[in-house]
């Protein structure tokens, strides 16, 4: 292992350039460790975003050597195979400064996909009893561990060419709620996720599946939404005019 690693880091906003740094190598060093070292020891004006450092909060995603990754759980050994690192902000999001992106669009789309719980009961009602092997429960569980890091959104080519597209994370979130027995918002949700900005725009290229750090399959969730919206269309539940 070399004593140092060469790192080029994006500086600026939409317009900018890569700046080179040399950072001491450490055992088990993560890409976030490298960025933090630069910010604390070399250039305190470097802007980036992180919180938990252990793969829970989803705030430290960046483009590392051309691929979107969660930097806190990405070991330098794994990605800097030739001893160099290039770290840039996530694709498909407006850059605020350096490595920090404006996430508003990403989170607004969770809302637009009706990725929120529509309760059907009050505190006076009994619990729903849902067994662990219930089919819908399993489908919801398969997508529920999303940490909202935006890696799938940056990896998605459809987001790149269709700025209105809701994106893998929002559609995956909608799918978990479609399968939630306690939720009563599916009519409005299926109408929200259908169409050329929703699940029908997905080309099943699976960039989201390839890059999701939690190993989720948004493509699978989106395929489920396609099936459910088709059923809803036959029942005349999607609204809108012909």
């Amino acid at each position, binding site marked *: 292992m070399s004593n140092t690693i060469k790192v080029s880091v994006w500086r600026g906003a939409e317009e900018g350039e890569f700046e080179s740094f040399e950072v001491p190598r450490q055992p088990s060093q993560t890409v976030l460790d490298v960025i933090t070292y630069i910010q604390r020891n070399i250039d305190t004006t470097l802007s980036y975003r992180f919180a938990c450092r252990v793969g829970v909060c989803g705030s430290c995603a960046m483009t590392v050597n051309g691929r979107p990754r969660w930097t806190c759980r990405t070991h330098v050994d794994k990605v800097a195979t030739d001893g160099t690192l290039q770290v840039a902000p996530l694709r498909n999001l407006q850059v605020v400064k350096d490595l920090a992106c404006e996430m508003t669009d990403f989170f607004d789309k969770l809302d637009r996909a009706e990725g929120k719980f529509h309760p059907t009961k009050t505190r006076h009602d009994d619990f729903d009893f849902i067994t662990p092997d219930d089919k819908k429960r399993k489908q919801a569980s398969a997508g529920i561990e999303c940490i909202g890091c935006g890696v799938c959104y940056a990896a998605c080519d459809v987001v790149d060419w269709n700025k209105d597209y809701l994106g893998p994370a929002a559609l995956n979130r909608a799918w978990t709620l479609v399968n939630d027995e306690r939720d009563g918002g599916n009519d409005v949700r299926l109408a929200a996720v259908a169409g*050329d900005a929703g699940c*029908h725009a997905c080309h099943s290229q699976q960039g989201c599946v390839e890059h999701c750090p939690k190993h989720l399959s948004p493509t699978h969730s989106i395929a489920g939404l396609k099936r459910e919206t088709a059923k809803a*269309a*036959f029942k005349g539940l999607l609204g809108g*005019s012909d």
Partner: protein
Amino acid sequence: MASARVETRLWVWQRLSAAVLGLCVLVHLGMIIYAVQDGLSAAEIITRVSGNAVWFVFYAVFIVAVAVHAPIGVRTILNEMTGLSPKATHLIMAVLCLVILVMGFRAVIGLYQAGAGL
């Protein structure tokens, strides 16, 4: 953005027509491989197809499936890759559907009736 209902219905139509096309293409390819064994000639094709109701129905279904499937795909590509308005791409889809239907049925009906002139 077109309505959710329209997009969903088009998606369903494209999937259904794809299922029909899957079968049709297999039969079509199988027939091509079979037909070229002894050389391919117009007379040989006409002899097989002309006046044959089974082949007429098969190719009629094939054409309808293509006329449904391809224009929806073209509309999607135009929506994604060009700056054309949704109305324009919808119109192109409809025109392309008609062109495929007219040209396809012209050929199928022509071949069905061709034997009478031989």
